[in-house]
């Protein structure tokens, strides 16, 4: 199991004065509401187990109150857990002493915040340099590195402005540059793009994906927006009331929702954009289809099929045919959610 960069094991967080003693009650099935009513403790996270692979974007998704922001703050221990372990590169973050955790925050994991968390008294360049200042990098070197990342996120020329003089999207670019400048392997992004308007958000997602193509960081990305999760996530975990409900690739989440809650979540998604040919591919038949790469979303596949007048695709992996998908398969996949979980697929209240 150690091929994970970050491994979260049996993590509980309960807010209240007697939190340690509440763990057993929750483990034995006491719900969030009962815990609040009977014991005046707030359930943050219950028995969360997640493995986070290196060099990928791991999205943790949930509605407000689901504990996602609490969870991400455990990874660099801005919040102390009630019980549990978080293993990063073989070391339990939750058992580190003050110096070690400080070092881990300086060199191991950097963070991007929902409301940017920029320092209003520092210029853009000084903000981007903050992590380097803390690491003890000399100013001239720090300025060079901060400038490099500001250039990369498209903020050349704004170095001497103050954050208050920038738009939200630009401020978050500063936040991103600040996090990247520390060269940490792990990037924690807490609803990093949620405060931005849709166009800017799409922009920032593109910037992040671009950078990730090259940097291969381990990114933990928190969001409440499923479209965002599906667009950028290599892997998605869904939280509800502090509990992990489902974890898997975007295709799996959309095609095989674990329960009605997830199904309801995913029902308005543009499935044609999420599902790829690979997910629908079945045995190679005798008929020749349009050869297309398996990673292509079916939205694009359908477009190409219509243009070239095919109604069958031969799914390719490199030069090899690995299966086929008919137009009919695609239409079916787009129109009808399949639930493997309990209950019906149609309504969830």
């Amino acid at each position, binding site marked *: 199991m150690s091929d994970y960069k970050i491994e979260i094991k049996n993590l509980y967080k309960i807010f209240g004065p007697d939190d340690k003693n509440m763990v057993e009650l929750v483990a034995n099935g006491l719900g969030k509401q009962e815990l609040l009513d009977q014991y005046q403790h707030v359930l943050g996270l219950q028995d969360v187990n997640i493995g986070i692979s290196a060099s990928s974007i791991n999205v943790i998704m949930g509605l407000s109150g689901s504990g996602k922001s609490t969870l991400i703050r455990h990874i*660099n221990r*801005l919040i102390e857990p009630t019980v549990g372990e978080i293993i990063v590169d073989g070391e339990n973050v939750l058992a580190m002493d003050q110096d070690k955790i*400080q*070092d*881990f*925050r*300086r*060199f191991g994991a*950097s*963070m991007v*915040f929902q*409301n940017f*968390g*920029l*320092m*209003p*008294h*520092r210029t853009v360049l000084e903000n981007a340099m*903050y*992590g380097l*200042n*803390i*690491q003890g990098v000399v100013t001239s070197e720090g300025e060079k590195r901060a400038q490099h990342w500001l250039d990369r996120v498209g903020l050349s020329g704004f170095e001497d*402005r*103050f*954050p*208050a*003089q920038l738009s939200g999207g630009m401020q978050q670019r500063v936040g991103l540059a*600040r996090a990247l400048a*520390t060269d940490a392997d792990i990037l*924690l992004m807490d609803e990093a793009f949620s405060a931005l308007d849709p166009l800017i958000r799409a922009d920032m997602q593109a910037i992040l994906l671009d950078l990730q193509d090259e940097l291969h960081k381990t990114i933990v990305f928190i969001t409440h927006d499923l479209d965002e999760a599906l667009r950028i996530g290599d892997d998605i975990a869904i939280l509800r009331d502090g509990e992990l409900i489902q974890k898997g690739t975007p295709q799996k989440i959309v095609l095989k929702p674990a329960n009605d809650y997830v199904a309801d979540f995913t029902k308005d998604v543009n499935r044609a954009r999420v599902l790829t040919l690979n997910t629908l591919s079945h045995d190679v038949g005798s008929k020749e289809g349009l050869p297309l790469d398996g990673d292509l979303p079916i939205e694009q596949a359908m477009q190409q099929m219509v243009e070239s007048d095919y109604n069958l695709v031969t799914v390719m992996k490199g030069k090899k045919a690995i299966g086929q998908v008919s137009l009919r398969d695609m239409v079916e996949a787009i129109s009808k959610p399949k639930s493997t979980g309990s209950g019906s697929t149609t309504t969830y209240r």
Partner: protein
Amino acid sequence: MSFFDKFPAMERADLRDLKKGIDSSFKEFSRSWGESIEAFFDPLFYFLVNFEKLLLATPWPIIIAVVAGLSYLGSRSWQLSVGAAISFLVIGYLGMWNNTMSTVALISVATFICIALGIPIGIAMSKSDRLQAMITPVLDIMQTIPIFVYLLPVVMLLGIGKVPGLIAVCVYAMPPIVRLTNLGLRLVDKEILEAADAFGSNYRQRLFKVQLPLALPNIFAGVNQTIMMALAMVVIASMIGVKGLGVPVLQSIQNQYLALGMMNGLAIVALAIIFDRVSQKYGKRLQRHREGGSDV
């Protein structure tokens, strides 16, 4: 029912003995410790005396140039700077130069002491709710207790002169800087502190790189208030032998010298306005990053 007619007070003789006891034990204390306490404050005394001597020995044109220069550095406003120079010229012309220098020396030293003690206390208070709960009532007492009540033990211990005057001024003038340092640090945005923590700042980095710079406008308002309150104490300090603009004011009250009182009183006001405007403008300049939009 005599119980309800008359308040069950202490017996007159007991009360007198109690007061006498306190008085005599304090006298005892001041007799045995007075000298060492005085010696403790000696450095302060020399600092004040020498600073005053320096101001008095410096030729007046240089003082005026320095005043105008500092005003300009603080406020970046030549009107204010010229106004300060003119005020000092008028003060000197009306024969109040030496007293004004004494008062400026006292206020400067008092403000310096208040800042040196007050900011660390304020920082400590902002870290701990318990400490805040303990210090706040002390600050309340310092600001509201009639000055003469604590002047008396100070005079008994240290005699009449500059140091007790300085202490009296500091006791009265220190609370604002402590309060506003505490407040300013507590008002720093929690999210920014979280960001500072997330990048691994240690206590000192967090304090000096983030908290203090962001609390600076409030701290500066505290400095401004401290200066104003120190100036308000000038006349009272003169009652225990502090030289300066307070002395003629006190004389004029005792002898009904209207013009003398007015002139010296107005000189204090002029000092107050100069200090206030310059420090306020400086405080505002510290907040330039808060302005959005155009470049500064």
